């Protein structure tokens, strides 16, 4: 088990190293170089020279890369030039990351809570009306662009009906902040109305963002339950008269959920990509929205850091999933 974890950690280091090279190369490959990309129309020979000096762009590439790497390892990615000028990229990340985590967790919870039971029922009643209609819904979920769904929800439930807030994370500006997770903060400080308000702000973006993982988790649960239902041990368990509850919990779901765990891990990437679109529609103030601004305003320090963090989150979550998987299923460890 320890060997398995160590091997996976080594792979992680390699992936992160290659990623750092790619990010470094990417910044240097920008049209006209990073200096003109950042200065744009305002470029004068003096300002160009100053920036070139400041970034150390006149030094050999390996030296530049080494400095980039050592600074990055200390969490120093430079100062924002567009999203929140003057602030360091790292402080922007720290300020905005909780919002995206909160939104993603809500979306993933929504998806899991609906998709797994639905997948089980659909498989159990194969080819029934419930099965067919939930398949169609999950396929439509894949076909609808996330930002359009987000807009649709906002238009109907926030603008036309006025049931839920239109945008942002909170409408109580003086709510106490402890962790940056607004719902949690409200609960910790016993400001119930602040927690309730933050939760209401999460509903629409949460549903929009949940549409991607929902479709995937539903389909994998359904396929996986179908496969397990056909196994001999399930038939044996039923034949020896175990109650349905026991067969469902101990024999079917315990085995069927293994591939679902992997699928949930892989959905983290899709969630982060979807967060860019959803947060933009709802002005949610997380790293997704910051990424959109950073691209529009060509804020490269922020971009570099946020893309790196998005990839790091994805890799770490999947490492955790793999370890969890190895704990649950001994067959994996020997591979």
């Amino acid at each position, binding site marked *: 088990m320890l060997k398995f974890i160590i091997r996976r950690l080594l792979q992680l280091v390699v992936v992160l190293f290659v990623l750092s090279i790619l990010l470094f190369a990417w910044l240097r490959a920008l049209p*006209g170089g990073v200096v003109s990309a950042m200065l744009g129309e305002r470029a004068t020979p003096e300002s160009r020279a100053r920036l070139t000096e400041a970034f150390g762009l006149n030094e050999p590439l390996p030296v530049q890369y080494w400095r980039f790497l050592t600074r990055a390892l200390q969490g120093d990615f430079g100062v924002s030039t567009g999203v929140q000028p003057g602030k360091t990229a790292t402080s922007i990340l720290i300020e905005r990351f909780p919002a995206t985590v909160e939104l993603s967790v809500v979306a993933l919870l929504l998806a899991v809570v609906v998709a797994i039971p639905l997948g089980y029922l659909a498989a159990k009643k194969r080819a029934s009306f419930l099965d067919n209609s939930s398949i169609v819904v999950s396929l439509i979920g894949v076909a609808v*662009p996330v930002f359009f769904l987000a807009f649709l929800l906002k*238009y109907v439930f926030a603008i036309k009906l006025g049931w839920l807030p239109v945008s942002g994370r909170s409408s109580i500006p003086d709510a106490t902040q402890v962790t940056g997770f607004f719902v949690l903060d409200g609960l910790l400080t016993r400001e119930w109305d602040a927690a309730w308000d933050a939760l209401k702000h999460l509903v629409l973006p949460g549903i929009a963002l949940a549409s991607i993982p929902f479709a995937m988790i539903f389909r994998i649960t359904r396929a996986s339950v179908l496969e397990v239902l056909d196994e001999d041990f399930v038939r044996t368990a039923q034949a020896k008269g175990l109650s349905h509850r026991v067969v469902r919990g101990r024999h079917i779901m315990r085995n069927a959920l293994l591939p679902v765990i992997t699928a949930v891990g892989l959905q983290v990437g899709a969630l982060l990509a979807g967060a860019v679109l959803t947060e933009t529609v709802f002005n949610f103030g997380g790293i997704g929205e910051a990424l959109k601004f950073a691209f529009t305003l060509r804020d490269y320090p922020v971009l570099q850091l946020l893309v790196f963090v998005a990839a790091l989150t994805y890799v770490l979550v999947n490492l955790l999933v793999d370890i969890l998987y190895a704990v649950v299923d001994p067959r994996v460890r020997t591979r």
Partner: protein
Amino acid sequence: MNDSQMPDRPRGLGARRKQRIDDLAATSGGTTVAEAGTVDDSGGVGLIASAWRRLRRNPIFLTGLAITVAFVLLAVLSPWIAPHDAADNPLIDKVSRQSNPIPGPEPGFPLGGDDSGRDLLSRLLVGSQQTLLVGVFATLFGLIGGLTLGTVAGAFGGWVDSVVMRIVDVMLSIPSLLLAVSISALAAEPSQWTVIIAVAVVQVPIFARLLRGSMLAQRGKDHVLAARALGVKRSAIILRHMLPNSLGPVIVQATLVLATAIIDAAALSFLGLGNPDDSKPEWGQMLGQAQQYIYDNPHLAFYPAACIIVVALGFTLMGESLREALDPKSRR
């Protein structure tokens, strides 16, 4: 739950036995894909032939196929169907910046116009062309890139495999949209082709991983070992024996990617990284550009969005039913 299962079981067992035989026939008949296609129905049934037999009666597949055929026909015929030139602006007099930026419907213009006074219906019809172009080329480029990487990795194995797969891992670790956006930021000027390339790059690692997996499975198969024992050249074994037999899942994925490519292109437009030249309309671009008028004139977004959803659904329905038909495990 009990009564839903009991009558099912004997039927299920019989069907399963038949299906096992079906599977055996499929695998024995289908040594190579090319061969499998030519095997006639009297003997063994090839994988493709038996897949087609099941697809022909599958309403999900037929719906997807119908949507796709209609979409392609529309793309080809739209210049003749469209009542107006998509780039022409006959309604420009009706556009006023202050009161009414979007001309409403009137005789000859059933859906009204856009912010430049161009006929919305004509733009939607002609938009199918560029949309098809984006979908097909993004998929094609992604496929070529992925096939190359996956074939190299899967065919050679060893350290080549390790290096290629680490690069693929890194590409997969960056959320797809961020990767596409990063690639399109590299272009000096955004155009339809930068959108296509950005969307294609995202698909490369997926195709590569898929193909490598099935190539690795092929390496130990009897027909590959036999070819190697007969002294067939390595390149010939890879290209003629391993590659054609690994293509099944890749074809399925390509069908699904046609849908995601169109959706991703729309997302790029939404983020302001789409093709700025709108003389040749594309649905994703129209949807992206409609965002600025979305509260007062949501119909500008609804129509292209509906087109994208229907077409993406068509490709997805086709891809999913193909996957099910080609997967021996799901033949029930």
